[in-house]
């Protein structure tokens, strides 16, 4: 019996056959077809074994893995060697200057990891007040429709060949003594003017001239005051009475942003005096909405108004139809000789002459109006341009170079210009886009964006400013001054050229002077500064005649009065006012989605151009008076001087009956020019709306076509128009569809200066109390003492961040809105969503018109409640206007916080109401329960959904670069709202912590408080008893909006004070 069991796999093993013994020595009993796998049958005779197979396998797997690992993001390269002055995560600011010929401001550009992402005013140096257009210009840098390189016609070309072409053209012109014209925006850059002089010097035989061109020009004002190339500097700070005749100096005016600040500083109710503002105008302008006394007049009466003021003041001339409405203003002016301003915004030489005469009679010239200190903005040379056009048409212009202008779009002579352009032998455009004009030029040599460029400016006399690049040019572009320099004998870079210009200005050490100027962005040289720029423009003969006309003698005044009287009597039909809007301006930035989505300060309409009309007239003509989501506007055609514009009609209270207003700057890209994504109408589910010929429909219509040329100057008011309804309807998108405050005193409080100065706090700011029963007596208890909840421990403990908003200072310009957009990555949602009341603005400005009906009046007249409320919904014919910024009130008993089921919105220990985006499930209960309606819901995935591909810049690879890396981009389905710029608070606290000091008042600013040109919004720590915001919160004018709801906001408002006598009706 065997002791060991033996197992065998088969008979072969049991018997130990040879085949078995052989095969058992091998690992694999049968041969594996490795060769077939690896090399195929053809190479079967090659001997490659299992190891080779594994090698091949390993290699191919490795190669495949490596290939798969190559992620598409190839440009995200970390800083291996830390660049000087760039710390990842820390912003770097560059002082620079914004200038586009119309707007001007000293800016600080915030860059993160080399990308400019935000523009704020440089308030310490220079003219640091900004408007929405300047704020938003940072987005235009990342416009993916900018040209990426030079072009010949519609074909790409190289810089070398383009340079060769321009050089040859100039040499040929020189040889033929031909006409060479440089057509640009009004240039106030000493170095650029010197570059032009260099160019001239290099081609002495050529007839080189420079024509400054401004689509919206204040030439008449410039001529009337005799201030060459500019308008006189207006000192709003010391003007106790401001009388504006059709002058919207807060928006549609040279240096508007800076004037707004100065005006505001003279409008503080607490000050020794508060300036009084009279406005005579046809359309409700931003300045008009802030006036203490506003009178609606027809454009043809503007001259009459000025004449009657002149008559009241000097006793000369005769009274006219407007004498009774101007009496108050004239008396106010007479009371403060030398301390007032009479401003006329009309580009009519006669009106301006009378305004000059009034100011002279009042002794303002030399006091509030400084003729030796000029503002070189928005003054083009209409006559020179007109003669250029005629020369072009006669084929006399050999070389035309253009920068910063778009006459094929925004000139009243656009058609003639276009024909003329076809006859110019060599046309070169330095435009960044193949826009209406550039696309007609032989060559486009795209210039850099302003944030990629060097430049200097001398806009306000004695104030020299620098622009510096904050990023390498994103595309293959070149600054046009560089191109011109290359054409001159001088050569070299424009940067060196500027430095050499500035070296000529320097007093003392040139390097230190330069470095200081560059650091501050500007330098004040005083009015005695050396003139460093070559004299400009070649004036045409007619121009000189007009300019030489006597301006200030009484004789010329009577001529002018006669002229304006003739204008008034010859006016007929409906009169038209052409104006520019806060967002779009002259139209240069019409493709900027932030500006398109900025609601107009008066109508609150976004993304559109329209005809404004008085409600009474609109009713009479049978147009829709009320516009909302499903109630579109009526469409009408305005026909004047044989030219037609068809647009929707928006009734605006305060507009003079018999007039219509149309904004300029719209209707761009009408022939399908590639000017940008956001300037065209889009369809409800995305994609462009195309017209019958397959072109993209532009937003609005181009009203520049209506501009008339009078005395060689553009006239923006016209008479003899007819308005006819087309019977069509057009949807209008507006962020506010209800226009009156409904007499809700706890939302909005306002008073008049007399009551404020002489009355008790109870007269103008009565705190809310609750009547309570206590010990058998009725007592009035402050709201704060009656509370169901335990208080949040913020008062007196640590920080308590808050804002104070002065309704007296808020002028409604909207600079804060674009600043908030830019700082907080607020999504742009486009017209259709705004129409559906789904705008995403974290900060909005509520605009209320007064109504003829009030509760008091209703009671006194015994009007039924229902009737009273329905009458309250209708604004007065000439209403007073209030602008009320509204954002999250950061309530300490926030209704939103208690209702969120998942605690996604909670209270911070520093008094902030915070949103936790990644916790939010989107029930929208918080938004419903917010009494201020400031919460915004992400209805769609704005950064990817097809509906928004044309309007939302974040859908574009370039547009995404402007996003603030400190702020999360919110996903679909979450709630968002003002965070009081919590990222800035955190950064500010951290900064103080590193320095080991307490957070200093003013060291942290929110985007809105920083952007406000009028310091209407003050941010700070309410617990810091020394802080400004603490003082303001405890001021007699301070109140909490909807205090009686018991929300205990961290944001307080200050009662609006108007400088007028009558109590509010």
């Amino acid at each position, binding site marked *: 019996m065997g002791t060991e069991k033996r197992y065998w796999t088969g008979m072969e093993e049991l018997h130990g056959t040879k085949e078995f013994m052989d095969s058992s020595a091998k690992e694999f009993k049968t041969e594996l077809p490795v060769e077939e796998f690896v090399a195929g049958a053809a190479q079967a005779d090659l001997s490659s074994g299992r190891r080779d197979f594994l090698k091949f396998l390993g290699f191919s797997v490795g190669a495949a893995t490596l290939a798969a690992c190559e992620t598409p993001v190839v440009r995200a390269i970390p800083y291996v060697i830390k660049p000087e002055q760039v710390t990842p995560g820390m912003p770097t600011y560059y002082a620079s200057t914004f200038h586009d010929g119309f707007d001007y401001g000293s800016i600080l550009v915030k860059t993160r990891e080399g990308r400019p992402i935000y523009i704020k005013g440089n308030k310490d140096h220079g003219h640091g007040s900004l408007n929405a257009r300047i704020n938003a210009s940072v987005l235009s840098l990342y416009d993916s429709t900018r040209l990426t390189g030079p072009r010949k016609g519609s074909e790409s070309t190289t810089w070398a060949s383009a340079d060769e072409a321009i050089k040859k053209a100039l040499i040929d012109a020189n040889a033929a003594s031909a006409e060479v014209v440089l057509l640009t925006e009004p240039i106030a850059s000493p170095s650029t003017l010197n570059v032009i002089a260099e160019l001239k010097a290099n081609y002495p035989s050529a007839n080189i001239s420079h024509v400054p061109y401004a689509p919206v020009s204040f030439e008449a004002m410039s001529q009337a005051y005799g201030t060459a190339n500019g308008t006189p500097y207006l000192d709003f700070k010391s003007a106790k009475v401001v009388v504006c005749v059709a002058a919207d100096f807060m928006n549609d005016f040279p240096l508007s942003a800076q004037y707004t600040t100065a005006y505001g500083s003279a409008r503080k109710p607490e000050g020794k005096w508060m300036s009084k503002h009279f406005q005579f105008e046809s359309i409700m302008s931003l300045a008009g909405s802030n006036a203490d006394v506003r009178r609606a007049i027809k454009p043809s009466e503007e001259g009459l108004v000025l004449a009657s003021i002149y008559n009241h003041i000097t006793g000369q001339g005769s009274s006219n139809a407007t004498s009774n409405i101007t009496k108050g203003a004239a008396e106010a002016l007479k009371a403060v000789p030398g301390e007032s301003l009479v401003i006329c915004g009309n580009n009519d030489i006669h009106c301006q002459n009378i305004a000059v005469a009034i100011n002279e009679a009042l002794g303002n010239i030399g006091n509030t109006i400084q003729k030796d200190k000029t503002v070189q903005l928005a003054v083009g040379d209409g006559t020179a341009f007109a003669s250029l056009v005629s020369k072009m048409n006669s084929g006399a212009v050999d070389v035309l170079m253009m920068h910063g202008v778009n006459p094929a779009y925004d000139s009243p002579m656009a058609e003639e210009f276009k024909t003329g352009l076809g006859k110019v032998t060599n046309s070169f455009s330095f435009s960044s886009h193949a826009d209406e004009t550039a696309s007609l030029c032989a060559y486009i040599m795209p210039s850099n964006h302003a944030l990629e460029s060097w430049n200097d400016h001398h806009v306000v006399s004695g104030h020299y400013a620098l622009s510096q690049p904050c990023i390498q040019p994103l595309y293959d572009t070149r600054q046009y001054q560089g191109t011109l320099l290359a054409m001159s004998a001088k050569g070299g870079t424009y940067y060196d050229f500027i430095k050499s210009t500035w070296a000529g200005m320097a007093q003392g050490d040139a390097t230190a002077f330069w470095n200081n100027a560059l650091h501050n962005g500007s330098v004040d040289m005083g009015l005695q500064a050396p003139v460093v720029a070559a004299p400009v423009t070649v004036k045409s003969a007619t121009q000189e005649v007009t300019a030489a006309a006597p301006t200030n003698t009484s004789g010329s005044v009577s001529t002018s009065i006669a002229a304006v009287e003739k204008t008034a009597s010859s006016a007929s039909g409906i009169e038209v006012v052409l104006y520019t809007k806060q967002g779009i301006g002259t139209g240069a930035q019409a493709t900027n989605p932030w500006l398109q989505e900025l609601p107009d300060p008066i109508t609150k309409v976004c993304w559109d151009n329209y005809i404004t009309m008085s409600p009474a007239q609109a009713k009479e003509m049978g147009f829709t008076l009320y516009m909302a989501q499903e109630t579109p506007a009526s469409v009408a055609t305005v026909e004047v001087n044989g030219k037609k514009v068809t647009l929707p009609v928006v009734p605006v209270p305060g507009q003079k009956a018999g007039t219509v207003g149309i904004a300029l700057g719209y209707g761009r890209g009408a022939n399908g020019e590639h000017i940008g994504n956001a300037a065209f109408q889009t369809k409800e589910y995305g994609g462009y709306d195309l017209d019958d010929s397959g072109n993209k429909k532009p937003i609005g219509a181009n009203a520049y076509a209506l501009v008339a040329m009078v005395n060689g100057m553009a006239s923006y008011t016209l008479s003899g128009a007819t308005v006819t309804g087309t019977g069509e309807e057009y949807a209008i998108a507006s962020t506010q569809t209800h226009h009156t405050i409904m007499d809700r005193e706890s939302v909005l409080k306002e008073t008049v200066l007399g009551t404020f100065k002489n009355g008790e706090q109870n007269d103008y700011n009565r705190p809310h109390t609750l009547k309570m029963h206590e010990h058998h007596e009725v007592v009035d208890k402050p709201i704060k003492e009656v509370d169901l909840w335990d208080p949040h421990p913020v008062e007196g403990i640590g920080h308590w961040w808050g804002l104070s908003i002065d309704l007296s200072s808020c002028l409604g310009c909207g600079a804060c809105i674009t600043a908030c957009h830019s700082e907080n990555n607020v999504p742009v949602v486009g017209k259709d969503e705004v129409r559906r009341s789904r705008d995403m603005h974290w900060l909005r400005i509520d605009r209320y018109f007064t109504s003829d009906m009030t509760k008091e009046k209703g009671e006194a007249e015994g009007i039924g409640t229902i009737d009273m409320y329905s009458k309250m919904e209708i604004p007065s014919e000439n209403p007073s206007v209030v602008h009320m910024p509204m954002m999250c009130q950061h309530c300490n008993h926030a209704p939103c916080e208690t209702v969120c089921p998942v605690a996604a919105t909670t209270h911070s220990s520093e008094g902030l109401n915070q949103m936790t985006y990644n916790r939010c499930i989107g029930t929208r209960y918080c938004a419903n329960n917010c009494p201020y309606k400031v919460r915004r*819901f992400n209805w769609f995935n704005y950064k990817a959904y097809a509906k928004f591909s044309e309007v939302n810049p974040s859908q574009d690879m370039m547009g995404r670069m402007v996003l603030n890396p400190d702020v999360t981009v919110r996903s679909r389905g979450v709630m968002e709202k003002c965070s009081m710029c919590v990222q800035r608070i955190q950064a500010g606290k951290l900064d103080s912590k590193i320095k080991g000091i307490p957070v200093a008042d003013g060291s942290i600013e929110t985007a809105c408080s920083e952007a406000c040109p009028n310091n209407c919004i003050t941010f700070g720590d309410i617990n810091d008893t020394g802080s400004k915001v603490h003082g303001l919160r405890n001021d007699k004018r301070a109140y909490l909006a909807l205090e009686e709801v018991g929300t205990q906001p961290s944001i307080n408002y200050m009662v609006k004070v108007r400088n007028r006598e009558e109590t509010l009706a």
Partner: protein
Amino acid sequence: MFKEASIREPLILGNKSYGDITADVVGPIENKAPKGWYIAITISALIALWGIGCILYLIGTGIGTWGLNKTVGWAWDITNFVWWVGIGHAGTLISAVLLLFRQRWRMAINRSAEAMTIFAVIMAAMFPGIHMGRLWLGYFVFPLPNQFGSLWVNFNSPLLWDVFAISTYFSVSLVFWYIGLIPDFATIRDRIKTPVAKKVYGILSFGWSGKAKNWTRFEEVSLVLAGIATPLVFSVHSIVSMDFATSVIPGWHTTIFPPYFVSGAVFSGFAMVQTLMLIMRKTMRLENYVTIKHVEYMNIVIIVTGSIVGVAYITELFMSWYSGVEYESYAFINRFSGPYLWAYWAMMTCNVISPQLFWVKKWRRSLGFTFVMSIIVNIGMWFERFVIIVTSLHRDYVPSSWSMFHPTFVDIGVFIGTIGIFFTLFLLFARFFPVLALNELKSILKVSGEEHKNKH
């Protein structure tokens, strides 16, 4: 044996034996479905599919496909939610409250009414889900242990109370309904011929043997569940009403809401029961069980609850004036005279005026009139919720934000879709489940049967 007064109308008409009752109820399940049933389920399933399509589009694209906006953050979604929850209430009231009060007429209608409750609550529960911006994170509303540290739900939020209220209500209603079904399933199991159906009904009936012990337990459990369900009738809609009552929005911030919502819920629920039963008694030939008397009883409940609702409306109006609060009084003035006055007056007409017509005996015993009225009441109750939600939100404190709500096709599609889903479920119920509580009915045959009464 219990003797019922002979002046009371009999609850079971005709000459019925126990066997007849079984045959009448189980018959439709055993036989082939009539053509009408196929037509009806095809239509309702198509509507349901359209609704599901709209829901998928909504979830795929965003809440923006609805017509909501920055001012009106809830509209049809929560209107539909409250409407469906309200409809559900009648079932629980009939089966639980009427059981406790020993109202025998409930036996003919409680099964269907409870089924209606279950389906209505399913429809209702869908809305808080799909109305969320991020449905996929909806589990955040449950107080689940998590890895986020001390992250917890917000117990202050009425929306969270809703989560608990609705889920409790749904589970109790489901259990209650199912327990009641067990003996009837057993009856079907014993009669049905096809082996598959026999097996299925066998499983569903949990081994019911009909022993006296089974019956005692059945009775006890029913009573206990009725005891649990009764407070839910009042709590669920009270809590739903607190979504509004605890807010600060004028028109929502009202202490009267809980009783007002509960009576409104019963009101609409009974109307829906009427709608369903009147169709069912006709198509399934149940005229002998669901009698004119049943209809009349339910109409009386409609008069009572409708009157309570009417009083609540008037009280609200009075309080808005009496409070002296500007915003409160404007909210109500705006309701009846503002841009949504048509909705307000539709609500008033349907809910306050129309039920009062039932004071006329002839009308409340008329089937055609009752059917029309039941639909009017449900329209009215839908408008009530719409009025409360939308007219309060669209014009609240700050006039600059005042807005209107305009529904989109997705709003409409989702609402109509839920009606489609509801009817699909109900038709399936009518085909495969015993629509009357047949074993319970048998218990009153000798008490309230017509033939039996006539004998004595």
